[in-house]
């Protein structure tokens, strides 16, 4: 393979936002995660924990609650007082509705999934009916003195427990009136605290209410009598979250010390029918507050201020001891945040609210393997581009020639032209973007930088001709009739004649850019696509999937290549398949057509197609990236 001059870039100091809520959907085995910047991400736990969708955040939209309802509809509520439903197909916000109760602190869907309950700053608990395309306010429950921080339905749907400050109320759903008020002890290790905040409640089918509070206690209440049954002091700090398994035989709580505790309902003695809740296992996978936990049938899921999403499988629930039984820690987004201008050696870094443009340094020295070369020119920070408005950046790209930068937020598309005069750079925004270019999920420039490909969130693909300082809309590929699935990944062939696009579930579509028509569709595969690229000369499309499979599809021949078939027949090496981070970028060695370069968040590797058997082995060298 030979020696590479590797630029080790460590100045992309991207910091993910902290995790605020997680919501697990048992039906589709998906996990929704909301972050403190308002971003909502959806992870497919069946597809190797791939982050398959995301909704960009918004400065004013701090999410405090997230829940799945009515099957697979996703709702969030936040401190701006709005309830938001997300369109999981088109990947945008379907609607936002003000609950008129001030900031919303908690939200939960009824066991049947047809009703939504929100707890507001003003102490009101509001019930909404979920209609097929919207939600409708139904009524208020008895107003409480202070904000409602947590809510939980009784599994039969007749009662509700609401955690507030210093007390827990139990409501009757039919009448909307309070049945019991259970006062939480403020005492904390003998010292009386000012307030005791009930961060989470869980209502079990036998009428037990479990509460977690800021005094570090996990308490069990009898909702029929309103009495405290049992109390566990588990932390010196707040216990911030609770999640109960569907079978109600185990639950998990997260503390502000970064620890999560597993509680299980176990027989008092063996062979006895009497069971009690026992604190069984503590896990310390976080360094900061665990703001939220979820309990899937086989795993404990936790997230918090330290930005890690941790999925800890429960060994006793895992049937097959395969790699799914391993602990997963997801920190970085599963998509590309860096684009590169090869000609001018520029890197464009995408942050939530700004872009950074850097020029790589250079060296005249040479060296042998392992040497760090002296820099003749250090890397330059050329540009810091802040977005206007409160919305987060969805995607960005720099053209290969380095003259164009395009980026998009949820409602606006920006195209800028860069002019280089010696060391000065001037940026000129192209104004008057057409109406259809409102927002983009993915932006890509052609290799010669004359065309811009934009995947809009309506499912259509736009081709724009770039001219000096202006542009011309050439064509729009509309989605197939009846589908509105958004395209998230694009790849264009270096000769500019083919465009491949992939959504979250359907197969990869290949368009003929010259003739402006759909060329073919690569057969759909069970796992979502994580990266796409078209090889120069051969026009082979290389597709990486979230289960770590790599396919090579010949676009001209409309079939998988011989190498791809061989690889599929033999199967990849198990160490390769066991990696837990998806491939986020595919590239090619210009001088070695047999090599495919791949990388994910943690490693860089090369597949040599000429060595079929050894290519199935994990690569020897790996580089740390990000």
């Amino acid at each position, binding site marked *: *393979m*030979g*020696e*590479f*001059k*590797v*630029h*080790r*870039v*460590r*100045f992309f100091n991207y910091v993910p936002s902290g995790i605020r809520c997680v919501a697990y959907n048992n039906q589709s085995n998906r996990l929704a995660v909301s972050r403190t910047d308002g971003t909502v991400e959806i992870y497919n736990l069946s597809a190797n924990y791939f982050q398959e969708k995301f909704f960009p955040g918004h400065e004013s939209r701090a999410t405090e609650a997230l829940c799945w309802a009515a099957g697979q509809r996703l709702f969030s509520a936040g401190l701006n007082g709005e309830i938001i439903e997300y369109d999981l197909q088109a990947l945008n916000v379907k609607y936002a509705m003000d609950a008129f109760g001030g900031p919303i602190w908690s939200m939960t869907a009824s066991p049947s999934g047809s009703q939504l309950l929100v707890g507001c700053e003003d102490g009101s608990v509001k019930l909404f009916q979920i209609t097929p395309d919207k939600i409708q306010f139904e009524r208020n429950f008895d107003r409480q003195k202070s904000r409602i921080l947590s809510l939980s339905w009784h599994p039969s749907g007749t009662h509700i427990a609401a955690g507030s400050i210093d007390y827990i109320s139990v409501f009757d759903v039919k009448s909307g009136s309070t049945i019991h008020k259970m006062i939480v002890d403020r005492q904390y290790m003998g010292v009386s605290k000012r307030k005791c905040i009930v961060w989470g409640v869980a209502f079990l089918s036998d009428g037990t209410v479990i509460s977690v509070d800021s005094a570090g206690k996990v308490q069990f209440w009898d909702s029929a009598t309103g009495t405290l049954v049992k109390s566990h002091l588990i932390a010196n700090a707040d216990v911030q979250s609770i999640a109960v398994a569907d079978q109600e035989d185990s639950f998990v709580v997260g503390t502000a010390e970064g620890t999560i505790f597993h509680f299980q309902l176990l027989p008092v003695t063996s062979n006895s029918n009497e069971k009690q809740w026992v604190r069984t296992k503590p896990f310390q996978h976080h360094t900061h507050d665990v703001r939220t936990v979820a309990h899937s049938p086989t795993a404990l899921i936790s997230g918090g201020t330290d930005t890690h999403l941790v999925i800890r499988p429960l060994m006793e629930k895992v049937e097959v001891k395969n790699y799914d039984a391993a602990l997963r820690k997801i920190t970085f987004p599963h998509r590309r945040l860096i684009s590169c201008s090869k000609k001018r050696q520029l890197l464009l870094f995408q942050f939530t609210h700004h872009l950074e443009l850097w020029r790589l*340094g*250079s*060296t005249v020295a*040479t*060296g*042998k*393997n*392992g*040497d*760090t*070369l002296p*820099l003749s020119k*250090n*890397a330059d920070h050329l540009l810091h581009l802040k977005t206007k408005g409160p919305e987060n950046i969805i995607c960005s790209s720099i053209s290969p020639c380095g003259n164009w930068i395009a980026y998009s937020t949820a409602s606006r598309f920006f195209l800028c032209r860069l002019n280089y005069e010696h060391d000065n750079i001037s940026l000129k925004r192209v104004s008057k973007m057409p109406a259809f270019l409102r927002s983009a999920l993915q932006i890509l420039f052609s290799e010669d930088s004359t065309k811009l490909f934009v995947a809009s969130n309506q499912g259509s693909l736009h081709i724009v001709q770039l001219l000096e300082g202006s542009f011309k809309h050439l064509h729009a590929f509309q989605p197939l009739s009846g589908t509105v699935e958004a395209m998230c990944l694009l790849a264009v062939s270096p000769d500019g004649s083919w465009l491949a696009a992939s959504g979250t579930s359907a197969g990869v579509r290949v368009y003929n850019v010259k003739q402006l028509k759909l060329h073919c569709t690569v057969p759909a595969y069970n796992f979502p696509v994580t990266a796409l690229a078209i090889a120069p000369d051969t026009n082979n499309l290389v597709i990486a999937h979230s289960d770590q499979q790599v396919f090579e599809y010949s676009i001209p021949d409309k079939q998988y290549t011989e190498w791809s078939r061989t690889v599929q027949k033999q199967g990849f090496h198990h160490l390769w398949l066991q990696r837990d981070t998806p491939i986020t970028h595919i590239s090619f060695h210009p001088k070695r057509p047999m090599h495919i370069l791949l990388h994910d968040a943690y490693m860089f590797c*090369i597949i040599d197609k000429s060595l079929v058997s050894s290519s199935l082995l994990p*690569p*020897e*060298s790996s*580089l740390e990236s990000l």
Partner: protein
Amino acid sequence: MAALEEEFTLSSVVLGAGPDGLLGVEHSDKTDQFLVTDSGRTVILYKLSDQKTLGSWSVKQGQIITCPAVCNFQTGEYIVVHDNKVLRIWNSEDVNLDKVFKATLSAEVYRIHSIQGTEPLVLFKEGAVRGLEALLAEPQQKIETVISNEEVIKMYCMFLIIFFHGNYFAYVQTFHSRVLSKYTLLLGQEEKVVIQSFTASVDRKFISLMSLSSDGCIHETLIPIRPTDPEKNQRVVRSLLLKAVVSGNARNGVALTVLDQDHVAVLGSPLPASKECISIWNIKFQTLQISKELPQGTSGQLWYYGENLFMLHGKFLTVIPYKCEVSSLAGALGKLKHSQDPGTHVTPHFVNWETSQGCGLGCQNSEQSRRIVSLVIEIEISLILLFQKDSEKHIEVELRKFLAMKQTPDFHAIIGDIVTGLLERCKAEPSFCPRNCLIQLIQTHVLSYSLCPGLMEVALQKTDVQLLQLCLQQFPDIPESVTCACLKLFLSIGDDCLQETDVNMESVSDYSGTAQDEKMEEQTKILQNGFNPKEDNCSNCDQELNEKPQDTTKETISCPVIPKRAALLNAILHSAYSETFLLPHLKDIPAQHITLFLQYLYFLYLKCSENATMTLPGIHPPTLNQIMDWICLLLDANFTVVVMIPEAKRLLINLYKFVKSQISVYSELNKIEVSFRELQKLNQEKNNRGLYSIEVLELF
């Protein structure tokens, strides 16, 4: 260890064994009955335990048996093939082979394979295999050709057939699946090597095929039982197991057979010129276990059934019963005493295999060594005879003569016998005490406890501490109970008795001999620079100690035992032990002796801590670890007793303070370690944490 027992010949009749030897020896359906087929016309049934012939059958003149007779274990009948194609089946009542069941087959039979529990299988020369019942149902059925014409069946064992045609091929046929897989045996570089003998054994997954090549090496080849791809001709590589087991150019054939998972028996001459030998080798440790000469020559054939080896010795079928014990490293080498002190002279306490191997390998002049062996044996016998009656003086002289001779392979065994002989007389005759002889014998460094278990017992009875010290120093395998008995004796024996004995004092340097006052004062000063419990201000608990500081210093300085006792105790400290076995015995020692020993150990510890290397002066002194381990052991075993004794109080307080100070030192070290780690981390970050660098990396 393996052992070959006394051989016996099976038949008084000379078998009609041709130059190729016998056709085969096969097990019959009754235990210790065997079918022997000679290469002419006769099948004989032997009963091994009675060493007599039960039956004999012959084919007609002009006919010739071509395949050894086997027993069909399902029916109890015997099967033989003569003239390649004619199958005969009879039972022990039949007299004439001409009148028994006969079946003429369409192809030539190579072997009949019969094992307990299944029907016999017939292997044809062309490689096909048939079950006997299926074959007899239609004797004239067509037999297919499995192997090509050029290939010849060379050897066959169990369900493995070896063919020779330029290369060696192994065909594996599993009976149930009828899948035939072919393996090429790769021989490696040595082109000229010819495989002379094969043997195979089966475990769950692999057939282990061992081959004895003409260069005398044993190789092992693993062949999977379940072939991955039966269609293909697969290659298997062999690995070397043993080197130069037999000489390359044996006149007669050589033979190899696997006895169990660790042992193989090899028949052949170890040297080009020497007589043939039967030897048992341990493959795991690559050691020769035992070997026996067969001066009348063999046919190069070897069979084994149960615990008997069968071979043709001269003209007679000879049976040698053998025994192989499960081999362990300890069994092969003997337990090695732990010693890492610099001044120790390393003597091998285990049997030197090289010399015994060397005998077989021609490193020594075998003729000469054999002469010495016989000479030694002669002397040994005469010595043992001497022991029975002669005076101590005479025995001593004779023994010295004997020891002056060169050491021979089984020298240790002879010495063991001599010691046992001496001890027997000791027991019978209380007045007889050959101390000097015994000391001489122990100093040969070849004795161990297991060779002469009675020796230390006698020494303990006679309270012969010098002998015990020697034993403790020399024997690698003293049981803990005996060590403890020695310790008991050493602690309880009176000082005046000790003064008279001649104890080796090399492990005790002058430190312990100085109870004199003028030297003591000097040492007090030295001590104050080192560890001194008085300066440890962390404890207020021992007011007694603070009240009389002068006393304490004195006590820590003077050795609590006299030098000779110290030397004996040091021997105990050096001996090997296992805690679990030692602890129960330690409980039997009286409390005041325990206290004394603890005081001595504590004194040794203080001596140790006087210098930076934490070692004691002198040749072969006890190490700090040994001292510490013994203190812990003694306290573990006797704490409840010791804690009640007023004399031990100060000692315990001292030990307590010592542990406490150690803990505080370690906690300080732990604190330092954290900051040290932080510093290291900072250092690392400085080294490689630039935000940007260009590096050269070579990717495979």
